[in-house]
């Protein structure tokens, strides 16, 4: 009998390890730090993805919220881009993907901004939600609904707003404007992980939960550039499972920066980022979840 128990325990451990390793990382899509809102450029980016037959999440990161006669962002092309010009550019991506893909690939296109800078706030969040609604309507009116989804996204990093108030106001504004999912592709800086007990730069784990999963539109697609980042998000999910009403974090996928960082081996490849978080959360039944998406961000437009 005792030998049977030992066999069972060993088998159990083997199953746990096998389960964590059995889920192959999906092919990574390309997300981008945007330096342009040129519709043709984005059309061709969408066409490239469609031609490759890729499915998944694409985040077009247009930079920090900014105001110049209207809501918009300060892009990585060191220029203001209005929300309407961002929508116009994203529509180009949707057109390109639709035209160049077969009938199977599925695109979740998210327009991304961040919580960096003093313009992060409720009105910027509301405007961003409105921009995503415009993209949803575009997909519907163009007959793209069988393959395309419009999403919002925010690179929410605790260190960029340690008081949390501007970030939470932005999130509330977005939720007031739309029911379209909001992908948090941010970090969990200064949050707890193995051997480290931080307070998420003042947000606490509750604040990070609210941004990534607690708000009704929020879904986590976290940055996993190294092991500690995966462990921080695993701890966040364990916290949420034990302390928050909607349980563990259901991670849609991961974001890596292998193409952008220029860091060589010091940053994870897309597969490494995905597998790290997948293994960590599936090592604990309270946080177990099967992720679906992997995206890698690049500077090229």
């Amino acid at each position: 009998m005792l030998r049977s128990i030992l066999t069972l325990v060993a088998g159990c451990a083997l199953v746990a390890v096998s389960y964590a390793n059995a889920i192959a990382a999906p092919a990574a899509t390309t997300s981008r730090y945007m330096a342009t809102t040129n519709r043709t450029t984005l059309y061709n980016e969408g066409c490239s993805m469609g031609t490759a037959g890729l499915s998944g999440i694409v985040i077009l990161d247009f930079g920090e919220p900014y105001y110049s006669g209207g809501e918009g962002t300060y892009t990585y092309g060191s220029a203001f881009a209005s929300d309407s010009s961002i929508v116009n550019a994203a529509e180009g991506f949707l057109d390109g993907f639709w035209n160049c893909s077969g009938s199977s690939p599925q695109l979740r296109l998210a327009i991304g901004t961040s919580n960096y800078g003093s313009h992060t706030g409720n009105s910027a969040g509301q405007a961003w939600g409105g921009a995503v609604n415009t993209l949803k309507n575009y997909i519907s009116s163009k007959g793209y609904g069988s393959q395309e989804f419009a999403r919002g996204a925010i690179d929410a990093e605790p260190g960029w707003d340690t008081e949390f108030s501007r970030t939470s106001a932005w999130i509330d504004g977005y939720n007031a404007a739309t029911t379209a999912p909001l992908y948090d592709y941010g970090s969990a800086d200064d949050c707890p992980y193995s051997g480290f007990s931080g307070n998420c730069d003042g947000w606490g784990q509750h604040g990070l939960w609210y941004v990534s999963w607690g708000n009704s539109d929020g879904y986590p697609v976290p940055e996993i550039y190294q092991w500690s980042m995966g462990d921080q998000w695993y701890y966040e999910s364990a916290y949420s499972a034990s302390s928050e009403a909607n349980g563990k974090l259901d991670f849609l996928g991961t974001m890596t920066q292998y193409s952008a960082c220029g860091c060589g081996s010091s940053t994870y490849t897309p597969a490494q980022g995905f597998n790290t978080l997948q293994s960590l959360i599936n090592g604990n039944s309270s946080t177990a979840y099967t992720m679906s998406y992997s995206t890698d961000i690049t500077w090229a437009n």
Partner: protein
Amino acid sequence: MRRVFAFSTIALAAALAACSHGGNGGTTPPVTQPQSANVSQQKMLREQERVPSSFVAPKHPGFIAEMPDTQTWTQGIAQAGEAPVPGGMFDIVNQYNTIQNGQHVTVYAGSIRPTGAGILLVVRRSADLHTVNAQTMTVASSAVRIESASGSDLQLQQIGRSAQAIQVRVPL
């Protein structure tokens, strides 16, 4: 015999409990799951909802010729501007933008974590923005700000206790 069976039953229950909690090496406190499954499931269903379309558009595959980008590339020093890098890696103070040899060049100044050393992050983009490369230069022991610039010569100010002016030539 009965005692052995009782022990075995307890051990089996413990083994199954351990199995259900996974093999995390005990790094996380045990958690209890609230009644959250329905909330999560409903949320995930919402994530998969499709936008209704009354028709399916025809497809017209093929790339289209790109027109020159009419966007104005602001040159000079800007206090605003998030760097295209994770906040957890760099703390950016400000940036300098210029065009050199047909390339768009952005120099971000600030510091790198966790050492706090002053750095410049130089990002070069081809005119069509399709090709980008970057390099990091460590220039001081603490964060730096760009005070002025002329061509590839930057005048930096070290921030902190030993505030010093630093002259740097950036390989543009």
